[in-house]
């Protein structure tokens, strides 16, 4: 443990938030004698606060030092006034353009999960109008240079929006390749026709899937939903809907079963990605969830290594070049249709090459860099051999054969789909709450909630600060405009040598 005030070796300084009043506070990020990383800060009103960010200072420093590929937003909608994170829109200081636009289409939800990290409202629920959604799409196309090919519809529970399929159709018609519905799966499990329609429209699903154990499921989602999730997955598989599973890792509740969840996902042909979130303590329920559940990014990676028995190791993950390196870690695996263990890309491609191949997008796409890296990987495997080289080469050859069949050329979008089916991705995404908030990470965020007027707010800032202000999502919206914090309004803490 660490005392609340300046102890340990300072790794860097940043701006965080008070966990009580959410005013901006200067914070020191320090390493203690045990090699752990802690954030320390003191609020004049609410006293000293500390939270552990990582169990390894070495990993934290090494990861934080990775230089992401920063591309600033094309359109700035807010001048810097109070300082990060109070000027979102984005502000002129935001360093990263949007790679994952998120559109909150409803405040209504048919669950009340103990880990829910947003505020929802069922009475007098907000449902985004068609015109507003059309404006969001227009802004996404215009303000982002026409390059965004992904949009995430969320809520609440987006499937309770009366027109969510229309929104899906609109986005697809606007040329968005990946339109993902973030859902708990209840409506889909009960309505096969809905799944069929969703499949026909080319929609994708991101299904919250926290546990294969009923007790843990109930502890995290507030109900025993496993059978419903399995039914939902059965239908999604039946109609070939590309699916992402989203388990929220919570220490002592479900972190022991992450390997089982991954194995479960690897076996399902339509599950493309597994996006593991670390528990974050924001929103209507998450804010009061026991803090014993807090788990860091590295701990999740280590649990993955332990519980997959080394099938996926910590060093199989690379940071996302499009985001702050402490926010996203990504591993890609080649699927073996014969039932053999999937092969992480880093076993045949050096991590820096995978990192470089990811540099243009949040998802691995058939870019020139990836093609070059794959070709070099194939040559290396062939020339030097090594563990599993024969099987890897055989799987890569099979993949090429599927993408480029001899007897019938596939259009590039179909070839991309075939490639997606032969590969699984595991993302570990660490959201921030007011305790762990770090403006350095916020400024580099590439996931943003998008509004009809074109403004965008990074998702952690949105979840921690902005959503609770909105009438749409709260019967009694909070206020923080009378805060006294702000990045420019304080002096730095003294640095104490460790």
């Amino acid at each position, binding site marked *: 443990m660490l005392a609340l005030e300046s102890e340990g070796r300072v790794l860097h300084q940043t701006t965080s938030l008070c966990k009580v009043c959410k005013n901006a506070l200067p914070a020191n990020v320090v390493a203690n004698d045990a090699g752990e990383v802690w954030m320390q800060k003191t609020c004049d009103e609410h006293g000293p606060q500390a939270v552990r960010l990582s169990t390894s200072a070495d990993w934290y420093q090494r990861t934080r030092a990775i230089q992401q590929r920063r591309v600033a937003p094309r359109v700035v909608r807010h001048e810097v006034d109070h300082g990060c994170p109070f000027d979102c829109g984005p502000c002129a200081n935001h360093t990263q353009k949007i790679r994952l636009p998120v559109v909150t289409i409803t405040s209504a939800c048919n669950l009340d999960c103990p880990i829910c990290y947003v505020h929802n409202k069922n009475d007098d629920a907000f449902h985004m109008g068609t015109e507003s959604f059309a404006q969001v799409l227009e802004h996404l196309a215009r303000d982002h240079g026409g390059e965004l090919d992904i949009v995430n519809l969320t809520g609440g529970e987006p499937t309770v929006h009366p027109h969510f399929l229309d929104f899906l159709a609109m986005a697809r018609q606007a040329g968005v390749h990946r339109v993902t519905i973030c859902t708990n799966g209840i409506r889909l499990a009960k309505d096969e026709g809905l799944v069929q329609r969703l499949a026909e429209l080319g929609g994708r699903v991101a299904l919250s899937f926290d546990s294969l154990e009923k007790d843990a499921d109930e502890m995290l989602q507030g109900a025993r939903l496993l059978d419903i999730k399995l039914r939902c997955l059965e239908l999604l598989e039946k109609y070939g809907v590309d699916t992402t599973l989203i388990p929220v890792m919570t220490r002592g509740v479900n972190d022991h079963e992450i390997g089982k969840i991954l194995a479960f996902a690897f076996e399902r042909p339509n599950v493309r990605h597994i996006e593991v979130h670390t528990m974050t303590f924001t929103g209507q329920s998450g804010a009061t969830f026991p803090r014993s559940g807090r788990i860091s990014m590295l701990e999740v990676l280590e649990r993955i290594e332990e519980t997959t028995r080394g099938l996926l190791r910590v060093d199989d993950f690379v940071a996302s070049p499009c985001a702050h390196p402490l926010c996203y870690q990504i591993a890609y695996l080649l699927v073996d249709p014969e039932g053999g263990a999937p092969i992480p890309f880093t076993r045949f491609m050096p991590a820096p090459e995978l990192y470089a191949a990811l540099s243009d997008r949040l998802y691995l796409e058939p870019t020139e860099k990836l093609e070059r890296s794959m*070709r070099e990987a*194939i040559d290396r495997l*062939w020339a030097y051999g090594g563990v599993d080289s024969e099987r890897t080469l055989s799987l890569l050859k099979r993949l*090429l054969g599927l993408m*480029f069949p*001899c007897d*019938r*050329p596939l259009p*590039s979008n179909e070839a991309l789909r075939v490639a997606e089916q032969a590969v699984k991705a595991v993302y570990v995404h660490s959201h921030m709450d007011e305790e762990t908030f770090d403006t350095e990470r916020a400024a580099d965020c590439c996931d943003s909630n998008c509004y009809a007027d074109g403004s965008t707010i990074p998702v952690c800032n949105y979840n921690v600060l902005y959503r609770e202000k909105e009438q749409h999502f709260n019967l009694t919206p909070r206020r923080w405009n009378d805060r006294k914090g702000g990045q420019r309004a304080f002096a730095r803490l003294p640095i104490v040598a460790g």
Partner: protein
Amino acid sequence: MQPDDQPRAGSAHRRLEGKRCLVTGGSRGLGLALCRAFAEAGAKVAFTFSKNVEDAATAQRLVAEAGGEPLVFQGSVSDAKHVQDTVAQLVEAWGSIDVLVNNAGPTQILPVALLEEADWDSVMNTNVKGAYLFSRAVLKSMIRARRGHILNVGTFASERIVEAPIHYAAAKSALRGMTEALAREVGRYDIKVNLIAPGLLDVGLARILPRHRVDEYLAQCPMGRLGTVEEIARSVVFLVSDDNSFMTGAKLVFDGGL
């Protein structure tokens, strides 16, 4: 009879009036475009295909709409029996064959590290052995008629140093050698043997390559665009018509000046 004594060909529009043309691999892409162009130019058309019955049915309808109902044969061009049966049936139906286009050939994208013996054999068999078998089979009737055209479909990948699967480039290069040697051998019967080497076209490979590969090609191409099958077909109609009375053993590259 000297060429000047031959009856003049009709208008360019009906350049192949009455000609009996066989195209291998005619169910899609360039092969299909050639079949349609031949039909529009007044020819009787037959084509072969290997696997995709649905594509073949569509092609059959399109060729019929372009001019006349084609004869369609399914089989592998590297299967000698299929070749002999196809040519025999055509000779029986038509009396002879005036034009053969050796177009069938798979595009298999593989780096050398993944290219196994079976892949090599398969591409060589289809592209080279298939062209040899069909050429030899039709030559009997062409020699008897003392006229004919054989057109081999190559690729710019055997003419330029570009990224291409080595077995594909090797097979297409072999076709060029075969074209020249065969032109020499059967020229005395007024049989013209030529080769076209298309660049990236708006069908086939260009539609499956990653966008950056197509962009790279276009950046190097003076014409700055992909070729169309129709513009290749227009030239081919001339090449296999009576209007081409003196060009043989030639290689025509259609790559926009790459």
